[in-house]
């Protein structure tokens, strides 16, 4: 038991290992600067999560459930945006002859002799053609 007390006494010497008051004042200033910088450089997803949680999180709902629903919402939004990008523009119509023509409402471009220029696209996209065909 004496040895136990001696250990405790020795370890108590470490209490003196403390910086000065000035250090803690500077520490606060450093913390405030860092906090501001964190606010500016926060990732978009984290900002979205914070806003989501401040609006929807209820104390009775477990955090895991909220995080899962947030992740699902993010994936759904990403999927919808991706799907919208892939969609064909509505002002193009496929002609029965196998060519794509501009909508009649669109103003046609003028040729050198004043006649309207017709843009005819091949029915089969280039990307579908075989790499060996020239």
């Amino acid at each position, binding site marked *: 038991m004496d040895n136990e007390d001696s250990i405790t006494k020795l370890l108590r*010497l470490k209490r003196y290992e403390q*910086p000065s008051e000035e250090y*803690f004042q500077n520490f606060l200033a450093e913390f405030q600067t860092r906090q501001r910088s964190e606010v500016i450089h926060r990732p978009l997803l984290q900002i979205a999560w914070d806003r989501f949680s401040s609006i929807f999180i209820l104390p009775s709902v477990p955090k895991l459930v909220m995080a899962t629903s947030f992740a699902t919402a993010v994936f759904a939004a990403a999927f919808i945006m991706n799907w919208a990008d892939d969609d064909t523009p509505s002002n193009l119509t496929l002609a029965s002859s196998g060519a794509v023509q501009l909508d009649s409402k669109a103003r046609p471009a003028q040729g050198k002799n004043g006649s309207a220029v017709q843009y005819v696209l091949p029915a089969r996209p280039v990307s579908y053609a075989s790499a060996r065909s020239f």
Partner: protein
Amino acid sequence: METLEPPDDELVRRTQAGDARAFDELVLRFSPRLYGLVYHMTSSHEDTNDLLQDIFSKAYRSIKGFQGKSSFYTWMHTIAVNMAINFLKKRNRRKTTSLDDVDNGILNDPDFIEATSHGDPSREANLSELQKKLNESMLKLSHDHRAVVTMFDIQGMPHAEISKVLKISEGTVRSRLFYAHRQLQNYLQEFINK
């Protein structure tokens, strides 16, 4: 006339309501104590400074979720200990701390010298050795044992408080202390017998 400082709970409520100055007050109030906790676990002033910044940042981000089931003091200590242990695990993977890295800044602390040497030059020389040995011995303990020794022996926290911070039983706290002390006795034998 003495001005009454607001209690922790009030500062927490004000922070939760968006008053950043209230949190600044909490930082000033808790940083010396948490500094000691983290420093005695890492034995490096530089790492302690960085880690303490991270700890307060995390506390600020999570304070809205603090419901007051435990005291703010316990809550802050729990964050600090968990982050310090995670940091030590990462540091161990990164490199083995050289004994030269161990901070011996205390030797320049006049309070420490005054309290221990009483102006005796031969004792002052021994202090240097003792300080080095103390830090080395602490680094040899496992992270869990080091946390318990830091809180109990150095910071003087009661067993019950440590068990709340670490979320373990008081029996486990006592058992960890017993084994940690036994290890430290072996490492510090020469100083105990003096």
